[in-house]
Each structure stands twice: as C-alpha cells, then as structure tokens.
C-alpha cells in the first residue's frame, strides 16, 4: 500500500512539476523582454519554434542532442540580435506598434519554416526512458525538464546579478537617463537583452522538441499562456515568472487532473484574469525583490 501511495505522490509531483516547468521555460524569455524592456514580443512563439527546428536540424546532421540544443539556443539568440537591430530598436516606447510588428514577424517566420521544413509535424524521440516508482511510471525526460527550468532560472539570476551586463541592464531599466549619463550605452544593452530573451525562447523550444510535435505552428499553442504568465507575474523577471508559473501551472494541472483538461485551461485563464484585476502590477509587484 505504502509503495503505491509513494508512487502516486511521486507521479503527481512529477506531473505538477512538469506543468510548472513548462510554463517557466516558455514564459521566461517573454518575461525578460517585458520586465526589462517593456516590449511585448508576439513572435515569441516563433522564436521557440525556431529553437525546436534548429535542434531538429542539429540532431539530423548527427550532433548529440545536448550539443544540438545548446547550438540551437545560440543560433536563435543570434537571430534575436539581428531582429533587434533591424526592427525592434525603432519601436521602444511604442507598445502597440511593437505588438503589430512582431505579429508580422511571426507570420513571416512561421511561413518560412513551412517552406524550409515542410508543413508536416516532425520530431525527435524522447530520450531517457522511464522510472518505476511504486507502480507508476515517470518519464525521465520530464525530470530533466524540471531540472532544466531551475537551471535556467538560476542562470538568468546569475547573469543579472553577477555579470557586468546584468548590472548595467538592471540600471538601465531602473533609471535609463541616469544609466546613459554614466556611460552605459542603452542601445547595446537593449540588443543584448533582446538576445537574451530570444535565446531563452529558443532554449525552451530546444528543450520541448523531444517531448512534443515540432511544427511551424507550434508557437501558437504557447504564446497565449506565456502571456498570461508574464502578465500575472509582473515585471519582476525571475520572481514574476517563477511565482506565476507555479500558481497558474499548478492550478491548471490539478484542475485538469480532477476534471478535464478543458476546465484546466479555462481555470488558468480565469485565474489569470482575476489575478491581474486584483494585482495590476503582477505578483512580483507585491514582493519586495525587484528581480
């Protein structure tokens, strides 16, 4: 009996943890851009898709999966830099216009993906196999994803607190004119920040690729939920993403389990609406730490 309960608990924990981890991965990049730059990037889902396809291409040409993932992230980050220089930098402070332009970008990116990769869904098999815990099977890769989510959160924290770039970026967000006055070049910082956001989206795509179907429209399924998470989380990049993902992902998973995935989805959306109404500056707006 005990083993079975242990199994059930382990299974639930893994399941809920996975839901949360996926939300964290998917929204972290968006959160960086929103929190640090006030930009809403409607092409975020397509950056994610790009990362997934890049990983696919890497694996197909013979690279081991982890290397392919890292390379894919780098490629997407590089692409992010190009996009920032060409398009985004004209749109700071123009919220609606940035949404529109990135929407246009998303249309282009997803159709180009169809041209290059074809419209059918593709994928890589999930590595790792499964663990048996008290009568329940848990896929090893879901554990990997949970760990990866933590790792990325930690990495972003390290970047923002330990590197020169990180300190400058935070300064530039808090007091842009002051930062500029002490010699920080906001344009370079912004380019780097956008690169970071894009890279995180690419990493999310790379990590998700072995678990889902990779197709040019896969971004669409994530963009809405990523949005909700970011908005509920507020402008604190880490605290916001972590707190909101935990809350929303946990609720969605539990409600789905208790009833149907439809109600789980609906619950997430309704909860998000209520939270935004009650805490307009997001969860992180309530917390003291600003990062």
């Amino acid at each position, binding site marked *: 009996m005990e083993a079975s309960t242990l199994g*059930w608990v382990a*299974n*639930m924990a*893994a*399941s*809920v943890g*996975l*839901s949360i981890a*996926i939300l964290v991965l998917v929204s972290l990049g968006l959160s960086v851009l929103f929190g640090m730059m006030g930009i809403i990037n409607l092409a975020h889902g397509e950056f994610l898709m790009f990362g997934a396809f890049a990983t696919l291409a890497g694996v197909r040409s013979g690279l081991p999966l982890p290397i392919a993932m890292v390379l894919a992230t780098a490629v997407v980050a590089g692409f992010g830099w190009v996009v920032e220089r060409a398009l985004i930098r004209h749109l700071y402070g123009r919220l609606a216009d940035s949404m529109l332009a990135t929407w246009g970008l998303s249309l282009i990116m997803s*159709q180009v993906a*169809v041209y290059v990769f*074809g*419209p*059918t*869904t*593709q*994928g*890589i*098999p*999930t590595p*790792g*196999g*499964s663990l*048996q815990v008290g*009568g*329940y*099977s*848990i*896929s*090893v*890769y*879901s554990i990997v994803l949970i760990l990866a989510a933590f790792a990325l959160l930690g990495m972003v924290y390290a970047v923002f607190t330990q590197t020169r770039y990180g300190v400058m970026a935070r300064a530039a967000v808090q007091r842009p004119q002051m930062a500029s006055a002490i010699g920080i070049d906001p344009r370079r910082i912004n380019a780097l920040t956008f690169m970071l956001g894009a890279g995180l989206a690419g990493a999310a795509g790379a990590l998700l690729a*072995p*678990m*889902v*179907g990779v*197709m040019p*429209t*896969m971004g*669409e*399924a994530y963009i809405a939920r990523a949005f909700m998470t970011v908005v509920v989380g507020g402008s604190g990049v880490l605290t916001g993403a972590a707190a909101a993902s935990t809350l929303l992902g946990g609720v969605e*998973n539990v409600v*789905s*389990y208790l009833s*149907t*995935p*439809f109600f*789980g*989805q609906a619950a997430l959306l309704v909860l998000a609406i209520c939270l935004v109404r009650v805490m307009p500056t997001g969860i992180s707006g309530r917390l003291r730490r600003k990062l």
Partner: protein
Amino acid sequence: MIRILPWLAALCLAFLTQSPAIAADKEPIMVGSVLDETGGLNVYGKAMADATKLAIKSINDSGGVLGRPLKLVTYDAQSDNSKYTTYANQLALRDRVAVIMGGVTSASREAIRPVADRNKTLYFYNEQYEGGVCDKNVFTTGIVPSQQIAPLVDWAIKNGKKKFYVLAADYNYGHISADWVKQYVTKAGGSVVGTDFIPLDVSEFGSVISKLQEAKPDVVFSLLVGGNHIAFYRQFAAAGLSSHMQIVSATFGLGNEQVVLSPKEANGIVVAFPYFQELGGASNDKFRESWTKAYGANYPYITDSAVAVWNGWHLWAMAVEKAGSTDRDKVIAALESGVGFDGPSGKVSVDAGTHHLVQSVHIARANESHGFTVIGDQQSVAPGYERSVCNLIANPKMARQFTPSNAN
C-alpha cells in the same frame, strides 16, 4: 471635400481590383476547390490539395469529361473559417463552377454547405468526419465512425482486450466519435473505464498520463487530432506505458504521426482506414507511380484524406459522363443511380440514399519503417448509422446533420 478623396479613391480601387474572371472559353468545365494549404491545418490540407491537382490532371489526361477539359480554380482558406464562406461564394457566384470540393474540418464544411446549397452548386466533402450529414446537395467520400470504429473495437475485443479508455479531441468530431466508441464497446461486451476530452491546443499530457496509470485500461482508444496531440504518443511512450496498454486510433496517421514519431514510439499502434500507402492492387500501384512522378519519392506519406479527394473527383467525373451534362440535378441523379470504381483503396461506390461511400476498410499496425503493415480488412462496409437515419431519395429536401443524440 478634400477629405473624401482619399477614401473614395481607396474604395473604388478596392472594388475595381475585383477583376472579373478570365473570360472563360466555352470549352473547359470550371471546377472549384477550397482547402487549407497554409496555417495550422495544412498538415491535412496540403496532401489533399496535391491530390486535387493530380486528380484533375489524371482526368484531363484521359480525355477530360464529356470531351472537355476540367479547369480548376483553387483557393487557400489559410485555416480561417470565414474565408471558407468567402471563397465558396466566389466559386459559386463568380467562377460559376460545376462542383465545389473542399473543406478540411467539419467547421469548414458547415461554412461551405449553406453557401453551396443557396447557390445550388454541387458540393463534395472529401474527408473523414463524425458522420451524420444528410443533405441532397452534398456528397461525402470520407470514412465515418459507423464504418471505422466498429472494426477497431472488434479487433481489440477479439485480441482479449476489454477495458477501454477513450481520449478524444475536444470538439464535435471527438465527442461524437467517443459516443460511438462507447456504443460499440458496450455492444461487443467490453467496458469504457474513462473518457477524456482534450482541447486542440493542448500538447502537455501529464495529467492524462497520470489518470491512465490509475485506471489501468487494456486499450487506449485515441481520437486525438492535430499537431499538438502528437505529443501524447511521445509522452505515453516516454512514460513507458506502451508495454502494458495498447493504443488503437481512428485518427492516428491522418497527420503523418507515424512519420514524425520514432518507430519505438509508434510501434504497435493499430488503426483503420480505407487507404494505406502499403496496400497492394494494380490501381494503387498506378496511383502511387503517378504521385511519385508528380511529387517526388521523398513525399512523407500519401494519406487517406488524399485518396478520399481522389475518389471524390473521379466519382464526380464518372457521374457527369453518365448524366451527359454538368447540370446539378442530373449529376445528383447519376450519382444516386450507383456510381463506383476500383480505386487505390479498393472498390468504392456511392451509397444512393445517404450520399456517403460504401468502401473497404483496412486494419493496420504502425511498423518499424514509419509506415503501416496491413493486418486485416473488411470489404464493402456500408455507412450503417447514416442509412438508419438518412434517405435522400425519399426526402430530397433534407439538409442537416444528424448526431447520435438528436437522431430522433
């Protein structure tokens, strides 16, 4: 006054760019097609569009219809339902086609139907769906649950598996097909221990897999649809469940799932369709040859939807020949008088009263090489449920869709 000018100019420009259709010579017969070639549904629509072009070419190469070539007008609805209404109108009113073939999802079919009916333009819906359409002006060539689900359930029961868990996409097709599964399973002496409806944009199945592990069914009956739902098979295999639960599915394969998944992930999944690329027969060999010539040997997989489209065009062409005219009522009469042929999937014929097809259904298992191995078949399966509720010869004015719960 100045302010009017830009607005008026733009208006006139927009209306005038609606150039009238190219002055059609008397010779070709105009036919129309609307499918989703871009957007989320192009996974299904692309193969259907390719099949459309190939079918027209094949008909024209054999001399056309009534000695006249077919001229195809095709529109891409971009996975947007509102465009279906628009393009259907266009085909009926401006291009004046003799027949419209199109629609991928049932929603798109329901968008086309009222337009085709109002303009008295014949309409063919060539795709598997939940069944029950009963409309004098409409013919469907796709397989329906009463043809497809019973064989699958029978196969599972015959192999000693009695506990079923149903996973269905959360929309009409999923709900109605799930109802059918329950009916057939109960009739065959099995039991359904759980049902879950998954919204179309969900790609994370953690909670579902948890529930499966608790319910411990013998069979998971999958009615999952779309690119996001592929993730289920992957996550199912990753959790190591394929060793103790058999998956049978009425939808696996339509979106080339077996191409995407690795053999380990897809191995053993059992499906039932009229058409598989691996079928034998002279007709299929010829069909595959022309397909390869047109689209290359690297084409992912020729889906059942593509062949449903192929069948539709050929049946229509035969009916027009039989009727001696493209007049809608005459063609309908010809179709109802019994038209059929030996197609790539075997013998198909139009079922007069229901406007569906009597066709063979093959059972197959996903294999090691991203394809299917045929393991059984049923010949000349009639659309049983449709026959029980729909008789368009006796009720020619009917134009609705029946569902199991509102059949009466």
